[in-house]
């Protein structure tokens, strides 16, 4: 199984990287609104089915991959 985790700064949490990139994009004459920068984590894992893989990765996120105070996460699982 493969899982892809997207970790994002929660709404309302200051994201200076996103703001810097927003400024740079505007500098390139792109018309853009908010930019937020998170991180993508690809994980290969052994699991019986997609649901148990999702549950395992959820625990990984809660315990390590994301800090629940400032970050939210989304999990996508594939064979």
């Amino acid at each position, binding site marked *: 199984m493969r899982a892809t985790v997207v970790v994002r700064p929660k709404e309302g949490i*200051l994201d*200076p*990287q996103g703001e810097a990139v927003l400024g740079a994009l505007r500098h390139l004459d792109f018309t853009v609104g908010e930019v937020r920068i998170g991180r993508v984590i690809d994980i290969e894992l052994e699991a019986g089915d997609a649901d148990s893989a999702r549950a395992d990765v959820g625990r990984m996120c809660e315990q390590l991959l994301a*800090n629940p105070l*400032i970050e939210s996460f989304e999990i996508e699982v594939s064979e």
Partner: protein
Amino acid sequence: MIAVVTFPGSNDDRDAVAALELLGAEARRVWHGDEELPAAGAVVLPGGFSYGDYLRCGAIARFAPVMRAIKAFAERGGLVLGICNGFQILCEAGLLPGVLRPNASLSFVCRDVELVVERADTPFTSRCAPDQRLVIPVKHGEGCYIPPPDLHPEQVVLRYATGANPNGSVDGIAGVVSEAGNVMGLMPHPEHAVDALVGSTDGALVLGSLIDAVRSHTEDLRQLGTLA
């Protein structure tokens, strides 16, 4: 004796030992891979870039074998001080509330900052007076403190003076203590402010307070046994 933990990537561990010794304490470095702590009166987690700051600052260091012993030590009331990266580690380990994010400016800041003492009745600030101004250097890229919504105001020990917030920390928070009051973390580096030759000596008030607390609690600490 005060134990100073060396993680891979710590770089202020020797400075912390030197500062504590300059102030008359016995200090010894402890390796992150050790399962047990020596019989110490307090533990200092120094500054640096443990595990290359991978994932989030301090997120990996909390799995170091010595952290289990430090957690047990803290839960028994042992005094733990985290400076800069040490503060980040204590937050990630759940020994302190909140989290540290990249500086709002995205710039690494390395300069003296003015601090205000919010609480002078902690084991880490007993040599200070309430509202006293301290000048202690900071040097970090990720020191923007985000408190949890339920942070008790009494847990804020140090704040950046008005106009001196170097990193965008919420409410200018520079240092906090645990609810029980025996674990403290701060972004400024008291160990870099103990010798008049290189500037302020206000850091000695923080480290000196810790040394006083260790001395006055020797009896209590002895009852904690080997602190394993």
